[in-house]
């Protein structure tokens, strides 16, 4: 059945439709109840991590304390020679400054890494399917990125300033060893600026082919720019070299072999792909959240239809990224285990494992939120189709996913610093052999929901845009929040894994044994709160200016 037929069917007999809707409301009730259960479960999960897992796995013990004498035995040339500029906030001010600017910057950088592909991909779909809404979202997203480009770059520059001022020895060595990748990054950065502006200002002025080339050029330049900066980011965790031995002044200050080993270190490509798909998922969830905000704000039916569709479209991108992410995440963890087993043990079997529990918990709640959205959003579509089976199937998926999630958030042990410490309490449900099955089930459920939505509900759902329930909107907003939060947690996990080193096992964090790292739970939660608040405000204000509403297109 095509869209028109479904629409006609609905328009033909509004009385019958009202009866169906009324019947649907009574039959498919409980959406908000499920949403509030999810929120309560999320709050309980946070309390569980904060009050049970964090102290139970001795997360309070700093990595500096655990590293002991190893920090003092490093090459003296890597110790700070200048007096340290301190920032007196909760004893970890310097780290909090860096965490705030870099985590916030990563979110804005992800707008380009993932957003560029979504924007130009949407334009390609528009050219292929001739549906204006794809062009509209591509334009809105591109303008969103154009405006927020400088805001994100400001955080990057602030990060560089903080590195130089607060960690001068690290900054000096990092800029020396990674000179060529960072130089290439600067060129790619300039290329990206030229391409994104040309792409935006060339809309409707250039031929479709040239415009698409600019768009894909923009996406590719962001990809390689990220690759260049990832050489440093991944090299800090898995340096690929055991020490930095300078040769002499010249085009290369370290031997070529060592430079290549550092630049193309063992986790470079794994981090690159992991980040790419994380940012694709992230941009999807951001679109979904902003779509829900606009849906609430706009009252016109055409606007509401469009923003309802944007929410669904964004969530589909998010789900695609989320299905692929665990595969890439597992392979990335394997490469960390092979290249820097100490860091791997710290985040999987040590006092930083609470961060992984928090991260996987955010992933689980994200899956459940998406499932709740699809149950809520499609329930009237099931009624139009005259089937209850798919609705029940989605409900069953939700509860199976909740069960799988319950396994995934289990801490592997409590009452000890390490998993292998004597006298620990080993949690029988927290073993990886169960978690692999649970994770696989989540992936399969995500795939099933997405493919059912794209294949079976494809035509039917078209007639129902503009009819988003309160629970549906709430789910979209929650998915956006969790999508941002999970990126912030993942960033922190990777950084804290290498503490108390800035370049693992080579350059210690400035301050040495007297400065404890990583950030305590209170401090990192403070940073996350502030960072997410800034991001949400920036996103909403910008999206108000960039949103292309169908009913007031001339305001664009």
């Amino acid at each position, binding site marked *: 059945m095509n869209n028109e037929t479904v629409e006609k069917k609905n328009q033909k007999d509004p009385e019958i439709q009202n009866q169906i809707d009324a019947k649907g409301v009574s039959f498919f009730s409980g959406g908000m109840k499920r949403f509030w259960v999810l929120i309560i479960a999320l709050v309980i999960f946070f309390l569980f991590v904060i009050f049970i897992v964090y102290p139970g796995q001795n997360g309070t013990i700093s990595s500096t304390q655990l590293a002991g004498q190893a920090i003092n035995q490093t090459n003296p040339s890597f110790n700070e020679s200048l007096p340290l500029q301190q920032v007196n906030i909760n004893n970890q001010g310097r780290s909090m400054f860096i965490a705030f600017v870099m985590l916030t910057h990563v979110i804005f950088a992800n707008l380009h890494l993932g957003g560029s592909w979504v924007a130009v991909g949407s334009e390609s779909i528009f050219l292929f399917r001739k549906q204006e809404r794809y062009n509209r979202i591509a334009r809105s997203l591109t303008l969103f990125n154009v405006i927020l480009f400088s805001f994100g770059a400001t955080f990057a520059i602030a990060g560089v300033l903080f590195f130089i001022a607060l960690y001068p020895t690290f900054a000096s060595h990092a800029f020396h060893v990674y000179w060529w990748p960072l130089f290439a990054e600067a060129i790619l950065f300039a290329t990206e600026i030229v391409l994104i502006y040309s792409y935006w200002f060339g809309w409707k002025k250039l031929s479709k082919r040239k415009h698409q080339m600019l768009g894909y050029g923009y996406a590719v330049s962001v990809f390689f720019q990220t690759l260049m900066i990832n050489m440093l980011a991944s090299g800090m965790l898995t340096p690929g070299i055991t020490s930095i031995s300078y040769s002499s002044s010249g085009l290369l200050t370290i031997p070529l072999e060592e430079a290549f080993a550092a630049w193309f270190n063992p986790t470079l490509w794994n981090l690159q792909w992991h980040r790419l798909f994380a940012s694709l998922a992230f941009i999807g969830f951001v679109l979904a959240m902003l779509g829900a905000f606009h849906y609430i704000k706009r009252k016109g039916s055409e606007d509401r239809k469009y923003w309802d569709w944007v929410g669904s479209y964004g969530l589909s991108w998010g789900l695609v990224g989320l299905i692929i992410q665990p595969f890439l995440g597992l392979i990335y963890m394997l490469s960390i285990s092979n290249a820097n087993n100490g860091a791997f043990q710290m985040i999987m079997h040590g006092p930083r494992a609470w961060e992984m529990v928090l991260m996987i918990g955010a992933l689980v709640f994200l899956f459940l939120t998406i499932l709740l959205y699809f149950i809520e959003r499609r329930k009237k579509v099931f009624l139009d189709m005259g089937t209850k089976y798919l609705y029940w199937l989605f409900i069953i998926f939700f509860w199976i996913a909740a069960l799988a999630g319950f396994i995934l958030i289990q801490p592997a042990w409590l009452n000890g610093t390490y998993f292998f410490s004597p006298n620990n309490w080993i949690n029988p449900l927290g073993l990886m052999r169960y978690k692999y099955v649970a994770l*696989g089930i989540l*992936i*399969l459920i995500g795939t099933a929901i997405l493919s059912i939505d794209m294949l079976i509900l494809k035509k039917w759902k078209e007639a129902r845009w503009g009819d988003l329930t309160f629970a549906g909107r709430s789910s979209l907003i929650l998915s956006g929040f969790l999508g941002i939060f999970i990126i912030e947690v993942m960033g922190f996990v990777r950084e804290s894994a290498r503490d108390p080193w800035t370049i693992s096992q080579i350059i210690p964090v400035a301050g040495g044994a007297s400065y404890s790292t990583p950030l305590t739970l209170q401090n990192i939660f403070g940073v996350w709160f502030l960072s997410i608040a800034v991001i949400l405000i920036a996103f909403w204000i910008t999206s108000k200016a960039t949103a292309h509403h169908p009913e007031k297109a001339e305001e664009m």
Partner: protein
Amino acid sequence: MEQEKLHFSTNSGVVLIVLGIVAIVYSTIIPVVQYPYNVFASWFFLIGGIIFITVGILLIFTMKRRYHSHETEGGLKNEQ
């Protein structure tokens, strides 16, 4: 209406095949990354994936055959 059923079944078959492929890929990742090696999870997803693909293919072909083979015998196609 019957053609809708055919589409529904065909699409369901495709969904099952996609699920089967994802399950098999996941089953091949587990032995690579798992420490210690987890035989159960790998076999669970491998066998599950094969079953999904088989059922998906059977669903598509059974429905298509049912639809086309009754063209002249008052079958699904003629019922429209």
